[in-house]
């Protein structure tokens, strides 16, 4: 029974996607889009830990397991897919490419769930690839110019990521002398001869998906171009997949890797600050949220870096990380849906209220989910990492500032996508469901995750917010200039696009065409006259050959 539920969690979206292929069944199947996430949601609750599902024949011996980490990520992903699915149903009802969108939505969902549950490397890679490539279609859905550009950048990076990941996984599996089991691979990495190379490849491969600093520039482009439900899922479930990859493969808590750890820590913190600063210079609400995601993911990456550096921190920090990821995924998803609601139905008072609450929760205001996670983090960090605590606080204030800026931009954008007909209830359901799970939900999940609830140290929560107020006022008068969205990519992308437009095609140095036209001069008439001399020469040669021998 348990195996069946697990299989349903992965396969139901896939089966639905295949069924969509048939023209006649489409009208009846499309409404089922959000409900295909239900089996995953149920399996989080019903399936006991460490239960395995074995498919020996498939691919290279496929097996699935639901462990503690997998369950949490499955929870947040399933929630996100379900609520965004509801939102998508109503938002895209009269969209011409609705079928295509739902087809790839389901494939991405199945990839996401499979990835979380996979217990062998090949299976993990299979579902990871499925998710990455099908999400490209979601980004590219509106087929506007910015969508094509974002899609192109995303695809290029995904393909690069796939290549790096393949090499990394091969090296990891090779080190574990061919064993496919994830746990064995993880431990094998500790003493593998190519540890440095494998780590670099895995960090880069998953870093692209998790939006690590140098490889992050696809994220803002994708989030702004994608339709609202897609960006909600993107920021929520897919960014976390990158994180999940690190948690699965990196030997956290088993071996000290100071080099990689410090690098990741530095990049994470840089990402955190960069996200905040660059977010303030955006005029589009979804871009602001995207850069806030870059910042938060940077934070999480730095924590992972910390653990890599100091392995003994792994035990205390794991639950905090999970809580933080859960909180960020749900809140960011809710914020994206809020943007969707605001743009379609304007900012009525309840919508505004929820938006402010979500923003405060993200900024870590007291009595919000965010505060809970922040306090848990502070308590988990050891004493001597004082500077880290301060920097986290600074990031928090930055986030607060960013959220303030977001609210201002959101208000300016209310009602720009107002649709003739009144949005149907499903959208409201989706939005409210996600907001509810984001705000009070985290409070419910906390005890289940943390050993004991930390006390609410008010002052340490408040001073960052207070610090944000004067900065906000300052910004009110001298707003930052408008920087292009997708900073690094935008710069080099224009060059590439100009060249493509001018009809340039990839040209290798041409080898000279070797069509030799070797025409011999015409044959002249018979050389009879030469026979006379030939006779003498050959006769002498024959005679000498005998006598000389």
């Amino acid at each position, binding site marked *: 029974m348990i195996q069946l539920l697990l299989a349903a969690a992965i396969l139901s979206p896939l089966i639905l996607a295949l069924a969509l292929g048939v023209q006649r069944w489409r009208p009846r199947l499309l409404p089922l889009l959000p409900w295909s996430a239900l089996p995953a949601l149920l399996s989080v609750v019903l399936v006991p830990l460490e239960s395995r599902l074995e498919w020996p024949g498939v691919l290279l011996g496929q097996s699935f397991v639901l462990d503690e980490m997998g369950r949490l990520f499955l929870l947040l992903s399933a929630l996100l897919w379900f609520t965004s699915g509801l939102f998508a149903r109503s938002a895209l009802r009269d969209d011409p490419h609705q079928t295509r969108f739902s087809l790839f939505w389901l494939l991405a969902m199945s990839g996401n769930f499979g990835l979380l549950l996979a217990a062998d490397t090949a299976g993990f890679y299979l579902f990871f690839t499925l998710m990455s490539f099908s999400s490209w279609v979601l980004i590219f859905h509106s087929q506007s110019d910015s969508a094509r550009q974002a899609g192109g950048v995303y695809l290029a990076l995904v393909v690069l990521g796939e290549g790096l990941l393949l090499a990394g996984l091969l090296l990891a599996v090779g080190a574990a002398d061919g064993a496919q089991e994830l746990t064995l691979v993880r431990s094998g990495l500790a003493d593998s001869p190519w540890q440095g190379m494998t780590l670099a490849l895995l960090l880069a491969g998953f870093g692209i998906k998790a939006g690590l600093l140098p490889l992050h520039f696809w994220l803002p482009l994708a989030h702004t171009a994608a339709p609202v439900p897609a960006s909600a899922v993107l920021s929520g479930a897919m960014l976390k997949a990158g994180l999940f990859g690190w948690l699965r493969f990196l030997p956290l808590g088993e071996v000290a890797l100071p080099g990689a750890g410090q690098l990741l820590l530095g990049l994470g913190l840089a990402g955190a600050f960069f996200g905040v600063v660059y977010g303030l210079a955006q005029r589009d609400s979804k871009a602001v949220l995207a850069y806030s995601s870059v910042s938060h993911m940077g934070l999480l990456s730095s924590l992972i870096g910390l653990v890599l550096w100091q392995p003994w921190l792994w035990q205390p920090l794991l639950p905090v990380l999970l809580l933080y990821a859960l909180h960020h995924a749900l809140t960011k998803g809710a914020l994206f849906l809020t943007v969707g609601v605001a743009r379609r139905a304007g900012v009525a008072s309840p919508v505004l209220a929820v938006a402010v609450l979500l923003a405060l929760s993200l900024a870590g205001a007291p009595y919000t989910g965010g505060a809970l996670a922040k306090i848990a983090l502070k308590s988990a960090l050891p004493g001597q990492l004082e500077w880290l605590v301060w920097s986290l606080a600074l990031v928090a204030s930055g986030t607060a500032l960013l959220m303030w800026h977001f609210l201002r931009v959101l208000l300016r954008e209310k009602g720009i996508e107002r649709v003739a007909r009144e949005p149907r209830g499903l959208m409201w359901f989706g939005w409210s469901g996600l907001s509810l799970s984001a705000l009070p939900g985290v409070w419910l999940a906390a005890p289940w995750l943390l050993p004991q609830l930390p006390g609410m140290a008010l002052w340490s929560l408040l001073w960052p917010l207070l610090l944000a107020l004067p900065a906000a006022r300052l910004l009110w008068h001298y707003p930052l200039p408008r920087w292009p969205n997708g900073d690094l990519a935008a710069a080099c992308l224009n060059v590439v696009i100009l060249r493509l437009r001018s009809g340039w095609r990839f040209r290798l140095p041409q080898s000279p065409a070797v069509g030799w036209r070797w025409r011999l001069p015409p044959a002249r*008439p018979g050389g009879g*006259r*030469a026979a*006379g*001399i030939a006779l*003498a020469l050959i*006769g*002498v040669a024959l*005679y000498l050959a005998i006598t000389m021998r």
Partner: protein
Amino acid sequence: MISPVLLFDLLLGLSLLWLAWRTLAAHTLFEACVSFIVFGLLMALSWVRLDAPDVALAEAAVGAGLTGVLLLGALERAERARVEAAPGPWWRRGAGLSALLLFLLLAAALITLPPRPPLPLQEALPLAAAEHPVTAVLLDFRAWDTLLESAVLVLAVVAAWSLERSVSPPRPAPVCSEVLRSLVRLLLPFSILSAGYLLWRGGHAPGGAFQAGTVLAAAGILLLLSDLRRPFDLRRGYWPLALLSGLLLFIAVALGTLGYGGTALDYPPGGGAALVLLLELGLTVTIALAFIALFSSGRSRGDE
């Protein structure tokens, strides 16, 4: 002191060489043909010096006579034939060089030739079908060669016939003087008589089919030249059978002896001489008619 005979041989050899050089260096084709005929006669003389009467006879009749007639017959048409460009001076010097080398090689070989073991002739000759050694070799020991040689002759005739496009009878000779006609009337009976004698004599003395045939051929050609008789076409009527008689007879004898004794051309003890005579007769007829046919084939009506 050089004996007169040796002196004569020396002179003969040198004149042969000089004449050969003159033939090649002749200005006109006619001069070359004539000097070649003279060369043939001198050759006949040298065969006599080398104790080879049969060869002398054959050379005189065939080498000098018949070849000369054929050459002169073809002369007129040959002069008009277009010819490729003459080979350059270098080629001629090259040919001269190889000629010299060839002579040196041959001379060295001939001079250092070791004496060779004699052929077991003395015992075999009495058993042969003919006393005269040359005829014995020709028609008994190496009769197979002679058979094939007659085949070559017949083939030459057939080949010459195959070249003719239009089958037209040989045209009459141009008007010729009465003196020739009367001379021919005189010579004809004598030549037939001497041919018969030569044929008969072949069995035991130099002579035989070749010489007799050639004499008959000479008579025939004279007959043609002198236009005494309507020109006869050897391709019509019984003439081909007569022409082939020598060859067919030879083959018949070969197959007969094959059937009789098991090995071809192994004459039965008694009948050797008779068979040889029969073969000689056939050969004479074939040779005569062949040479006549070869001579007349070039002069058919279509030619001029």
